[in-house]
């Protein structure tokens, strides 16, 4: 069995490792459903269309050099590479694959969310601008 505690997911954006600031991450792989229903069919029929995935990340904000805000600000308005691994620090393999995708950094929430009692956070959903590549070899 290859289940794991969800407390060590790795994330790199533009090769910068931001894992230590991630409080939640969800990579949603999906593709368009293109209707191909024709006469004589009793139900809707769909075929696979273009991939349309998203990467949702919640960060603890950090304005230090080369950390969360500096990296995202530098990438703002561009498509950069995001690499995600389920268990950082463990070898890439069939039970710990790498997911690599290009994301369009088209939204930032630098001031973030949270009240006086909270550390400032940012919650962003990035649109993927490539297919999600899945690898069982390589390095994070």
């Amino acid at each position, binding site marked *: 069995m290859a289940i794991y505690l969800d407390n060590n997911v790795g994330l790199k954006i533009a090769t910068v490792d931001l894992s230590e600031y991630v409080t939640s991450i969800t990579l949603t792989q999906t593709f368009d459903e293109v209707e191909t229903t024709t006469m004589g069919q009793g139900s809707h029929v769909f075929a696979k269309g273009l991939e349309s995935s998203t990467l949702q990340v919640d960060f603890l904000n950090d304005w230090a050099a080369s950390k969360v805000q500096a990296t995202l600000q530098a990438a703002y308005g561009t498509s950069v*590479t995001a690499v995600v691994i389920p268990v950082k620090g463990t070898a890439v393999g069939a039970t710990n694959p790498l997911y690599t995708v290009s994301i369009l950094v088209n939204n930032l929430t630098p001031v973030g969310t949270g009240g006086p009692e909270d550390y400032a956070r940012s919650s962003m959903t990035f649109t993927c601008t490539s297919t999600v590549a899945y690898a069982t070899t390589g390095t994070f």
Partner: protein
Amino acid sequence: MELTMADQQITPADIEVLKKLGLPIPAETKTKKDEE
């Protein structure tokens, strides 16, 4: 789909981010542009 090594290579946009951050660019890494 199995990821190829080419898919893992750093992109020009990634390099621009690293330059803005003042971080070193991995010297051993070829860009996709370099390979063309």
